[in-house]
């Protein structure tokens, strides 16, 4: 048996392989949960199925879509931004600053726009730091972006405990609630989805799709992943390109951070590390599962959010602990990593 490289990737491989990975991954997770914690396969599978159609996953789906796109931008250029988590929390902090400590909320629409924009600037700048280190000193962006997540957590923790501590917190360490007029507007019938988040998700996908497909910047980011030397000889400023790619990635993550504050959290609570949903990390799976195709990002985000929800349902049903959440996601991802080989390779049986 030998692996032979396909001349063209498997047709429909972009859809078939993720789907197959999910089915196999869920089955393996079911077995794991049965063997280790004795969870009944029927309950496990029903939790998974009900999560797939649960309305509770919509918000997670939208957040992961936005973040998935953010990471896709960097990953397309083989720049491994592991720092979406920190970038998005800085976005949250930026939005909180505008909402709590400026007079802008008197003009709600302006305030909302400024919240998102400032969040983008801060998230982008935070990511650009790693970009500058990579571009000028050739320092690997993976540890840098990862470490900067914790710096972001602690900076915000400091702010929330100190200068930003709210007045009406009943003993909790947290900021005040942002003014009602800058909270995002709920869609009728939903308790979590807001118009603004929806618009943000659609805009992010549309603009990023356009950027990657129709601009020189997008094309060059894609080529950066395969041959930076050719770009350099062609007359492209590769340093600026690396910094720009990371900055865009961080800016989109920052925007999602603002949306999380104005659309859902409405305040920041101490300590961040135990209040975060870790979307910034989960989104890495989304981007990876999409095989770096932006059209597959919403599909991947949907699947990951459903599995995420399935883990929570298992917890509520009392069959397993919090770790079940990641059993599903981890197993599916591992299966996918193995199976995606077949998009590029085919197995050929050869007699010896």
């Amino acid at each position, binding site marked *: 048996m030998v692996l032979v490289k396909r001349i063209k990737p498997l047709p429909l491989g972009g859809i078939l392989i993720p789907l197959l990975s999910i089915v196999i991954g869920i089955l393996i997770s079911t077995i794991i949960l049965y063997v280790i914690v004795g969870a009944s396969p029927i309950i496990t599978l029903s939790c998974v199925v009900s999560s797939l159609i649960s309305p509770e996953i919509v918000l997670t789906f939208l957040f992961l879509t936005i973040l998935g796109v953010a990471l896709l931008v960097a990953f397309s250029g083989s720049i491994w931004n592991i720092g979406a988590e920190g970038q998005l929390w800085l976005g949250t902090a930026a939005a909180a600053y505008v909402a709590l400590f400026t007079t802008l909320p008197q003009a709600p629409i302006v305030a909302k726009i400024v919240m998102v924009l400032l969040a983008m600037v801060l998230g982008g700048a935070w990511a650009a730091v790693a970009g500058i280190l990579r571009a000028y000193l050739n320092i690997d962006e993976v540890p840098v972006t990862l470490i900067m997540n914790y710096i972001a957590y602690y900076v915000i923790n400091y702010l929330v405990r100190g200068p930003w501590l709210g007045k009406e917190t009943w003993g909790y360490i947290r900021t005040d609630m942002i003014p009602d007029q800058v909270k995002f507007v709920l869609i009728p019938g939903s308790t979590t989805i807001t118009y603004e988040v929806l618009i943000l998700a659609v805009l992010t996908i549309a603009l990023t799709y356009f950027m990657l497909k*129709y601009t*020189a910047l997008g094309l060059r980011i894609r*080529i950066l992943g395969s*041959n930076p030397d050719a770009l350099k000889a*062609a007359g492209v400023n590769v340093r600026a390109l690396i910094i720009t790619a990371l900055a865009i990635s961080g800016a989109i993550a920052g925007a999602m951070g603002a949306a999380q504050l104005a659309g859902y959290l409405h305040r920041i609570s101490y300590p961040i590390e135990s209040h975060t949903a870790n979307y910034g990390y989960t989104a890495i799976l989304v981007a990876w599962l999409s095989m770096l195709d932006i059209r597959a990002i919403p599909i991947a985000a949907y699947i990951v959010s459903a599995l995420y929800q399935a883990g929570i349902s298992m917890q509520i049903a009392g069959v397993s602990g919090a770790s079940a959440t990641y059993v599903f996601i981890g197993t599916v991802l591992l299966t996918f990593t193995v199976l995606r080989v077949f998009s590029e390779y085919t197995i050929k049986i050869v007699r010896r």
Partner: protein
Amino acid sequence: MTESKAYNSNFSLKINTPIVSVKNISKRFPGAVALDNVNFDILEGEVHALLGENGAGKSTLVKILYGIYSPDKGEIYVRGRRVRINSPKDAIKHGIVMVSQIPQIIDRLTVAENIILGLEKYGLTSRISEVRDFIKVKSKEVGIAVDPDIEVWKLSYTQKQLVEILRALLIGARILLLDEAITFLPLIEKRKFYKFIRNFVDEGGSVVLITHKIYEAMDIADRITVLRQGRVVGTVRRDEVSPDDVRKMMFAEKSAQITYERLPTSKPRDVVALEIRDLWVMGDYGVHAVKGVNLTVKAGEVVGIAGIAGNGQKELIQAVIGLRKVEKGNIMLYSEDVTNKGVAKIRVKGVGYIPDQPARFGVSLDNNIEENLAMLPAITRRIIKWGAVRELARKLINEFNILTPSSKAPVKLLSGGNIMKVLVSRELFVAKRLLVAYNPTRTLDEVTAIMVRKIIKEKAAKDGVGVLIASEDLDEIFQIADTIAVMNSGKIVGTFPGDKANRDEVERLMVM
């Protein structure tokens, strides 16, 4: 013309059974040229050249022999027994080892460490002292010194290729596949390899020499098999044919286009396109590679730099284009000082650049032809107009006869020569004022190479573009250059008008 000096043996067709026999091999790629029922024998103790134009299927055939590709159809026999070669490991078991044109060695390790590593990969072991001795003895035999304890990044290309070949021998190669492995070496050093190869086959080894250069095949091969469009045109004995016969086999009716006559001298305009003043540039190893070069290229003029590889041509060209820092001196582009302005600023002023490693500095292999055009700042500034890019791609594909399934196929599916055509056509398109080239045709077959030279010359004569071309191929320099500058040890040691230059004099200055 290079004379064909005999490194051929007293080889005669003994009643040999072929050591390796390829029968009815076919391999299909979508759209691109494939192998069609190829039959091919390698005898013990022969140098067998596999010759063909760009995209003829030579590389595909050896990659099948080495287990990198698997054939759709056909059989391989080693010493009369049918074998299946599914990986290089299988090939090595049968004594078949390939050396390609790109060194596959790790820069940070020493020569000896690299070789040990190569052996371990195939389950072989050897003591480092033995490897060291082997390198010392063999490098002496070849006449190219290689210190076994030196880090590989300090070696020249020739030395790296020698290390590759020595490693192949230590792995136990009985049939050595040289896939353009010595094609790009400077002539003097190439001749040293010829002798070495001859010794190897005299001791019973066999060599398959894959090349697109007729003279390389004529210099060293005992037999020559010519491939054209994936089919075997024929196998001939070297001593029965002339270069012209082989050329006809390679190119059929197109061989009439091959000529080494000087292209008509163009009339330079009265404008200086490029002026280089007292230029000093550092090489890779912390010593000056370019030492005070002065050179002028007028608009419409082709200036050719002749010289043996490693005399500072590469560094000079890279400095002009902005890829290498200028230590001292000035580079003026149409009277504008562009010294150390950086490649981005220089290129958008209408400067085309043809590097000699197309896959690394020219194109992005994972992307298609359209994307490889659109990536250039000189073609796209911000928003890509895909319609216009597609039209340009089609035009270039037609004009240069680029063999590709479509303008949307990843460039990596193309043969080496066709990849070079993509690069050359693109750079000629963007070279509105100056074209800078380093060995622009060395991966191209004769027909294509001559076509490219004609187009470059026309570009100079008609559009008034200044052209600075450095090439290790003296035929090329003599064919195309209006002015020949000879470069030796980082300096220009002589300048001649192209039509009056004396070849012996130029060669003397090159090796002086």
